[in-house]
């Protein structure tokens, strides 16, 4: 029981103090899981980061389920996950209520009008990460275009499979009302076939 409460409390702190999501939470998780409680060794933590990249969901939740299950089985992953989302549930629910009630106020409306374009820019930054890891994957489907790295791009070798399926996916998404999940699955299957043949 003690370990369950410890997991809950540790991940509650991670959930409460990790702003901005994603990899911003990584140092906090490491501090709780590796340094403070020694639930994992450093190399196991590195494995966890790799697994997080290979599985869906935010890294803090992935860490909660993974560490929780390893320390205390299924109850462990439940307690850790619940701790991780508990602060957000309360705080964001309160914000959701405030938003619904007061978003017509001129000050709030103005603030949101200033924020919305910034959010578009922030979402676009996520594309940079995806572009650099998929277009410049260095897989067997790459062709060398000298000079790309010198203009600030991540490398000289462009992954043709990635560029091709990106273009097709974007065309389909713009043209048809199709589930984005199907589009992503499609590009995944293309990748599975192509990269299995030409190599990663």
């Amino acid at each position, binding site marked *: 029981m003690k370990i369950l409460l410890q997991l809950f409390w540790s991940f509650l702190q991670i959930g409460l103090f990790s702003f901005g999501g994603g990899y911003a939470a990584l140092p906090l998780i490491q501090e709780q899981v590796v340094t403070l409680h020694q639930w994992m060794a450093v190399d196991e933590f590195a494995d966890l980061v790799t697994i997080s990249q*290979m599985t869906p969901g935010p890294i803090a939740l992935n860490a909660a389920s993974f560490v929780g299950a390893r320390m205390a089985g299924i109850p462990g992953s439940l307690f850790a996950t619940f701790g991780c989302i508990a602060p957000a*549930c309360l705080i964001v629910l309160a914000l*959701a209520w405030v*938003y619904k009630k007061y978003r017509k106020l001129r000050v709030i409306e103005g603030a949101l009008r200033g*924020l919305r*374009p910034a959010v578009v820019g922030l979402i676009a930054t996520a594309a940079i990460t995806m572009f650099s890891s998929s277009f410049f*994957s260095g897989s067997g489907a790459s062709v060398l275009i000298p000079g790309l790295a010198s203009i600030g791009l991540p490398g000289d070798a462009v992954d043709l499979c990635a560029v091709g*399926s*990106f273009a097709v996916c974007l065309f389909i998404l713009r043209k048809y009302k199709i589930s984005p999940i199907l589009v992503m699955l499609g590009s*995944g299957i293309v990748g599975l076939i192509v990269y299995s043949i030409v190599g990663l």
Partner: protein
Amino acid sequence: MSKESGPQPSAGKSAGLSFYMRILWETFKISAFTFGGGYVIVSLMRKQFVEKLGWIDDKQMLDYTAISQSAPGSIAVNASILVGYGIAGVPGAAAAVVGTVLPPLVLLTLISYIYKWFIGITAVRCLLLGMQAGVAAVICDAVITLAQTVWKQSRWAALIIALGAFAAVGLLSVNVMLVIAVCLLYGVLVYGRKPSAKDQEVHG
């Protein structure tokens, strides 16, 4: 935009159990395919809840993203709470959170027992690398549509803010919260006071 004009749950009359299950199922599907961070799930949610189902609009989605980014916790969970609440109040938020949390909870619990083996599977790596191209397309699709939305609202000011935020965070690694604070302040000062700021901005 609301083509299908789903159940109108704000009155509470049609928001039955099956509707909450529908919300849970939608967020479950989205969460199960969210590779690569918070803004990916926002792009997926926009496609599904704004474009396909018409339960919320683009402006709400942008507001939810800004609030998710500013609150503690992961963007995925925060955004699902906001979307769920916006569609069907507190029970809607609960359904959306459960749907969002379940896929990583189940998957990572299972994988924790076999992770050495899982990391080594080449086919998984091939599939994931292939999916990244699709994810990039989903993000670009969202950015194109959302850019049109904010362009209609604030024209050149919107373009400058969007490009500025993109360059500051994506290229210069400026802290996201700082960017949000600056844009929020700008919004309050420029649009927050005057009764009809809308017409004045069009000149740029």
